[in-house]
């Protein structure tokens, strides 16, 4: 077993797969992080990915231009995110239920559109869709072990790394980040400071749509070269769990999605040594649940310690107002 693990971890192919399967999760997790920071849960990420994956394939096949497909896919994903906003923010709907509804809408809708266009329910192989470019890095590709991992990755893998930087700056260094967190943490205070909460929430939803759109396009135009029904495979849901693990930061999102990527890639290897594939397929989700539980546990413990300290401080002062809420 140890020998097996060492052989897997020393294989450059394993790390290549890790990067490849982490990238889409990372993108949607960032999307989940940013909306959650503004205090709205985007459960429709799954639907955004599905429409992006399908629209990307259709438009790139129709125009013959992969970037046109990419843009169209992102636009479709943003539309789904904004519909969620419309219902959740303007029509006072339960955001979580709306997300569920939009995912249902998307699962059925994408298959419906695919069938109406191609006569096939499962796969878009009859459409001559394009794939996003794979990047060969000069010099690096010649380095023995490292080159095989980093060179030849799809451009989206690098965009996902870039997205971490952008979202990190957006949340921590830009004024809009302060506003986002203000809206998420204390709506009333934000309002009285002249921030329009709905505008901020719509903004974060749009950003999460862009991120989910890129992830969706990657799935059908890079990770694989077709749209297949249900291609997102619950990644939008995983992102919402990973978001908790990420603890609301862009850098945390890397670790959270790596947990999924590492186990997802490991699953392929474990299958090769004869473990039942069904159990292996369940592994990434199990690990996500575990990560989710462990992180909330740690967070709560920290919170408890903080409260305890506050309490002791209060007791030290006579006439203190007490614990508060």
């Amino acid at each position: 077993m140890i020998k097996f693990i060492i052989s897997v971890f020393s294989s450059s192919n394993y790390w290549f797969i890790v990067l490849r399967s982490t990238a889409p999760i990372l993108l949607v997790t960032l999307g989940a992080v940013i909306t959650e920071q503004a205090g709205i849960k985007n459960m429709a990420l799954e639907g955004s990915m599905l429409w992006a994956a399908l629209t990307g394939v259709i438009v790139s096949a129709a125009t013959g231009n992969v970037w046109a497909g990419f843009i169209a896919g992102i636009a479709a994903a943003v539309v789904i995110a904004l519909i969620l906003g419309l219902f959740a923010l303007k029509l006072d709907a339960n955001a979580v239920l709306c997300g569920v509804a939009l995912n249902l809408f998307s699962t059925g809708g994408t298959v419906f559109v695919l069938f109406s266009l191609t006569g096939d329910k499962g796969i878009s192989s009859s459409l001559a869709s394009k794939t996003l470019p794979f990047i060969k890095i000069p010099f690096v590709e010649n380095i023995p072990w490292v080159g095989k991992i980093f060179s030849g990755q799809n451009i989206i893998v690098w965009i996902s790394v870039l997205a971490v930087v952008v979202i990190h700056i957006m949340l921590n260094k830009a004024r809009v980040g302060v506003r986002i967190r203000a809206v998420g943490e204390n709506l009333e205070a934000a309002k009285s400071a002249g921030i329009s909460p709905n505008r901020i929430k719509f903004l974060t939803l749009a950003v999460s749509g862009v991120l989910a759109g890129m992830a969706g396009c990657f799935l059908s135009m890079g990770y694989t070269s077709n749209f297949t029904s249900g291609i997102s495979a619950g990644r939008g849901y995983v992102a919402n769990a990973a978001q908790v693990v990420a603890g609301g930061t862009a850098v945390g999102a890397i670790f959270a999605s790596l947990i999924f990527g590492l186990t997802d890639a490991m699953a392929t290897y474990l299958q090769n040594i004869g473990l039942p594939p069904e159990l292996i397929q369940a592994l990434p989700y199990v690990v996500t649940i575990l990560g989710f539980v462990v992180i909330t546990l740690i967070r709560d413990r920290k919170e408890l310690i903080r409260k305890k300290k506050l309490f002791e401080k209060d007791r030290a002062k006579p006439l203190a107002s007490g614990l508060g809420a």
Partner: protein
Amino acid sequence: MKRKFFSDRDKLEPALITIFAGVFSVLVGVGLIFIVSKDPVQSVRNFLLGPLLRTYNFYYLLIAMVPITFTGLALCIIYQLKYTSLIVDSSFYSGAIVATAIGINVSLPPGLHPAIAMLAAGLVGGLISLLPAILKIKWRANELVSSLMFNYVFYFIGSFVILYYLRDRNQTILASMPFQKSFSLPKLVENTQLHAGFIIAAVFVVLVSIFLFRTRWGYEIRITGANPKFAAYAGIPVATVALYAHFVSGFIGGIGGAVEMSGLYRAFIWQMNPSYAWDGVIVAMLARKNPKFVPLSALFLAYLRVGADFMSRRGDVAFEFITLLQGLIILILASDKIANYFKERRLKRAALSHDLAAQASSAGGQP
């Protein structure tokens, strides 16, 4: 009693909105058919009238009501508690797996055999249902997110059990060994598939109605859902309430899976998870969380599904468009603004006329 129902605006208006959601989604469906179909008139006819014009389809409609009644009931309980967990999907699927195992491997007299299987499936379903609730209560982990993760996990575990322990290796497609004869539920009508599960589902509608609205447990669930803080102050053990509500909900889901197996099939032949929980969401929402109305909304949804199935078999419109409509229905029903449209308008009017009567005093009278 009936008269009061119809004179009471607060009850009538939500009913109108619900009907609106249903009619609206059907209209959208018809619109979509006209866009994609080469012979739209025939397709629409098949979609809307198919379930009613043929006896075979009509029985199919009744059979299709059974599983979604169970998941709908299970979700009514969850929604009364104001949770959003979808773990009943796992309960239903695992219930079907447990029933399959018992249907194949245990020998019991007819009648008792499916009953034992249902009980076991219910227990397993109930226990599974506790998982996201525990995570929520203990660590405040969002129950919808964790339940969706669990749904993947239990789906994979279920197909593992079928593949490695219950599979019939003589079949080319994935199927379990055949069930024993004693496992099958009796048919209600000769030469049709309509099985006794229909009656069991009806009994559960009554049981869950009584449970939610006539027992202390149901009362505690509703109070906890309406206002957990008040419930806690009133001395209701909120966490315990959430746990047993989930157990009962999962129990019903598990039984649903077992009923489906022993009523409809001779072996486990699902190639993928039928995911009746998602249909249950709509059934529960159309019923406004009230078990009494679950049969009605299950009938409506089954009608849509059977119509769509019939249409897609005979035409060029994909069955999946029904899932799209289901999403639309939930979107409309989940929106408080739409749900309270009439009420708000009435209140505004009342406030306005009141303002006019009072003439002066109101400062910035816009509500």
